[in-house]
């Protein structure tokens, strides 16, 4: 499914992307004036996915968040001003196993009633060779914010108007209090969760 990835695996969490520019957040205001000159990219929800891969008893289970929004301002020639913010609806986590899907919403996992969203806001995007980038940012899940680095690639098509952004990062669910109590036993459910992004975005969309 993913065109590119490099990494290990794990269970349950969140996030996303690295491209470009978050309009919201006070963080962004410093760049706001300049950033507005950067192209905005609209996410094609039908072709985009934020996937999580957890492991229990050695077996990988893949799921995805059915709902998320992304605000992307990106220009490969103006990385310093490029920014992205992705907000995920935690209650939209879906694995196709109703037992797991119900369990994930409970307080020991995402506690979706109290923490309906998880978010990733880039703080710095750097180039890493051909079409490869790295987005350093703040990842917030269940009210806990941690630094995270998401390596990603951008493949342009449609005359540069459509971008396919793919990336993968491994997070530790317990750092965010995901799967606490009895679920803290990483012998059964691994601490590591792989997050993969596959986002298709259109310039000016």
């Amino acid at each position, binding site marked *: 499914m993913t065109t590119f990835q490099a990494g290990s695996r794990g269970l349950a969490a969140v996030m996303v992307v690295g491209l470009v520019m978050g309009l919201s957040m006070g963080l962004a205001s410093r760049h706001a004036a300049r950033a507005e000159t950067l192209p905005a990219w609209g996410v094609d929800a039908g072709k985009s996915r934020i996937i999580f891969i957890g492991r229990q008893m050695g*077996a990988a289970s893949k799921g995805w968040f059915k709902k998320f929004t992304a605000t992307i301002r990106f220009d490969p020639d103006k990385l310093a001003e490029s920014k992205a913010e992705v907000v995920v609806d935690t209650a939209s986590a879906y694995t*196709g196993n109703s037992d797991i899907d119900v369990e994930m919403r409970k307080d020991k996992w995402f506690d979706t009633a109290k923490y309906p969203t998880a978010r990733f806001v880039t703080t710095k995007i750097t180039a890493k060779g051909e079409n490869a980038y790295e987005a350093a940012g703040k990842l917030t899940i269940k009210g806990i914010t941690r630094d995270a680095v998401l390596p990603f690639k951008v493949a342009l098509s449609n005359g540069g108007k459509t971008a396919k952004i793919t990336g993968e990062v491994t997070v530790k669910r317990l750092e965010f209090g995901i799967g606490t109590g009895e679920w803290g036993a990483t012998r059964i*459910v691994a601490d590591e969760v792989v997050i993969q992004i596959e986002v298709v975005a259109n310039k000016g969309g």
Partner: protein
Amino acid sequence: MSLRNTAVSYGAVAKAFHWLTLLMLIGSFTIAYSMVDMRISPRKLELYSWHKWVGATVFLIVILRLAWRLRNPAPPLPDGMSALQRRLAGLSHGLLYTILVVMPLTGWVMSSARNLPLVYLGLIEIPSPFGVDQALGDALKTVHYYLSLALLFFVGTHVLAALQHHFILRDDGLRRMLPWPTRLGASKPDREDITT
């Protein structure tokens, strides 16, 4: 005891397959009954994995067993059975083998359909080609359940038949599958004694 089947008795290999299957089935059913109604928890996930590993082992054993049986015909049924009894015996043995093959397969496909794929012994990932599919998972859950009832029924019949052969018909039907050395034909003084 001969490794291969003889004209009057099962050999050591066939006996090992038979009794190993029984042990695995006892394990599998015990785990299944304790896990199935649990609320989701790490313990439940652990039990499910164990159940899958035991089930996959049953499948491996039955495949090896059938291959062995193909090259190693079972000893003829005891004398004195009617044609109907012989047909019923063949039918029930065939059904037992069929269930032992099909049931693990339904469990395997169901596991992947429910997004908890089989990783044999936590080491060897064996995803089913049908992938995640809630409707398929629900359907197979029902099939797996009814197969378990059918298996219990036919194992029960099998045990009763073995006991009938031993205690009522007083032939070697049971004795020739016993895991320890047995004197065959002991209850039929007119037959030549054959030691396994």
